[in-house]
């Protein structure tokens, strides 16, 4: 049996789990108090997080302890800790439930992270459509202030930490960390050229660390139970539990928190298996920006970075999109290419033009007007975006196109040759 909800969702089943009293009854804010009392030093925390093998849950999987060590806590001037709750990658909806059901664990994680990097101010960037999570999180901040866990000279420690929410207004690109900073600064969400990286030039030009919601919410448990505990939950090189959003053609679609490295098969059974008694056709394991895998590859993989990479894709944000044997892959890709076209910020020509090209060609194929050379055109255009753009959105846009063609080219050919899908009688 897979053990569920050991970290970020550990309180979600409790009555009024979002209230500070509930959180405190489960040991909440104990670590924060230890930190403030000097029992745990910033260096010890970084070391413990390194031992835990926690890798960033926003999609890139960057080791969190290492990221924090890039900040110089003692450099003069304002520094910031920013939480990325933009959660807009299609298939992803895990952070929403942290904010709805366990907001104080995120607050505690942000406070600790801020202390470690020397940031006395933090912002949680919440996507604009998330009203309920926003209200829960904002209320939790007020409770934490009243309880003396945030504010000035917290618990007589001499340390200040002020935490606020910021709301987005509908733009996938604002999940990219530098676009997110621009957005907090009140600008269009257009990613910055890097370097300089946020650790040296971040929010308002000040040193800034940006982490995903799930990453930060994991911190209190890592420090309470030890980095070793967390590391052992997972696999070598990637510790802990991971939240997986199981969506698509499933009997029981839901968010599941399971140990990293759990076989995909087990996760699929947790989610009730493929709906309507149908067969599995394909899986997108990490959100729309990760490569689609055919059923046999997916069924053989485990839910960790290395195993999914070996299968030919990426763990990403843990957003598993499941497709049954009646799924039209051309129509699915059409939807994804539209998304990247719709969301490209327009700064880089290969991304702005390439996403439009790819969408129009896939759409043409789906409408039965495809030309024999279209498949080569798609491969060519997708190949020309990667590496020629400022941010990961451009690369991400090419991945679905390349992988759908790699595994399901025959469906595209069928549309081109017969003017209809493999499911239609020509």
């Amino acid at each position: 049996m897979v053990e569920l909800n050991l970290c970020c969702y550990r309180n979600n089943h409790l009555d009024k789990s979002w209230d500070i009293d509930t959180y405190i009854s489960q040991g909440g804010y104990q670590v924060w108090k230890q930190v403030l009392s000097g029992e745990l030093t910033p260096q010890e925390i970084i070391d413990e997080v390194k031992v835990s093998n926690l890798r960033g849950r926003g999609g890139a999987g960057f080791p969190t302890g290492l990221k924090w060590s890039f900040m110089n806590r003692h450099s003069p001037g304002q520094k910031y800790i920013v939480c990325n709750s933009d959660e807009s990658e299609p298939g992803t909806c895990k952070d929403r439930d942290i904010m709805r059901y366990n907001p104080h664990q995120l607050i505690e994680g942000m406070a600790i992270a801020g202390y470690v990097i020397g940031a006395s101010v933090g912002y949680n960037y919440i996507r604009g459509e998330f009203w309920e999570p926003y209200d829960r999180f904002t209320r939790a901040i007020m409770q934490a202030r009243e309880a003396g866990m945030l504010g000035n000279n917290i618990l007589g420690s001499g340390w200040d930490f002020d935490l606020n929410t910021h709301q987005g207004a509908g733009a996938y690109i604002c999940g990219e960390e530098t676009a997110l900073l621009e957005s907090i600064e009140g600008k269009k969400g257009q990613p910055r050229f890097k370097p300089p990286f946020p650790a040296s030039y971040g929010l308002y030009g000040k040193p800034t660390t940006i982490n995903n919601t799930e990453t930060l919410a994991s911190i209190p448990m890592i420090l309470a139970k030890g980095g070793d505990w967390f590391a052992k939950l997972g696999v070598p090189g990637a510790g802990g539990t991971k939240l997986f959003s199981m969506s698509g053609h499933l009997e029981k679609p839901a968010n599941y928190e399971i140990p990293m490295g759990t076989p995909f098969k087990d996760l699929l059974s947790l989610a009730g298996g493929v709906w309507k008694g149908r067969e599995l056709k394909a899986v997108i394991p990490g959100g729309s920006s990760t490569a689609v895998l055919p059923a046999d590859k997916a069924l053989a993989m485990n839910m960790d970075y290395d195993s999914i990479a070996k299968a030919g894709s990426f763990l990403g944000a843990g957003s598993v999109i499941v497709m049954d044997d009646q799924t039209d892959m051309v129509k699915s890709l059409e939807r994804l290419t539209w998304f990247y076209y719709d969301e490209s910020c327009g700064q880089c020509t290969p991304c702005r033009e390439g996403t439009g090209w790819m969408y129009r060609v896939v759409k043409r194929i789906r409408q039965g007007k495809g030309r024999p050379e279209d498949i080569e055109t798609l491969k060519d255009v997708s190949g020309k975006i990667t590496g020629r753009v400022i941010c990961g959105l451009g690369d991400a846009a090419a991945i679905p196109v390349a992988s759908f063609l790699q595994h399901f080219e025959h469906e595209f050919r069928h549309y081109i040759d017969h003017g209809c899908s493999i499911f239609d009688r020509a």
Partner: protein
Amino acid sequence: MSSVDTLNIIQGDVKKRIDRWLARYPVDQKQSAVIPSLRIVQEVNGGHLTKEIMDQVAQYLEMTPISVYEVATFYSNFEHQPVGRHKICLCTNISCMLRGSDELLDYLKTKLDVDVGQVTEDGKFSIKKVECLGACVNAPMMQIDKTFYENLTEQRLDEILDSLE
């Protein structure tokens, strides 16, 4: 909505709400409050922005008007045409599509007798197709005003729309 003075929208409660946002940012970074401010004035104005309203936000936050227009056109939550009293935002991205959002959209269009981007004759509803709203495990789903409605079926949709004033 007739009580809104669109020529002097940042006053009273609206001003207080914007000021509360301003308090969250460094004093020399008023521009940081532009998104929240636009959200507030859009709401008070019945769901969409106009040039004169954006200009007042610019003035209040000490920004150039063009930098406010840029923000207001970049983010998809901002509207520049009138919308219904309830803006129905139906997600049609991949996880919702796999569970029937296209069929639901057709149903909705027929039911309300309007197309995407249009307002019903009584001004009550408008339909908008949106990208993933981050509730994919409960697909298909939609947002109306501030609420997410999830695990939709045609019947649920009927009930929800009937329940709205």
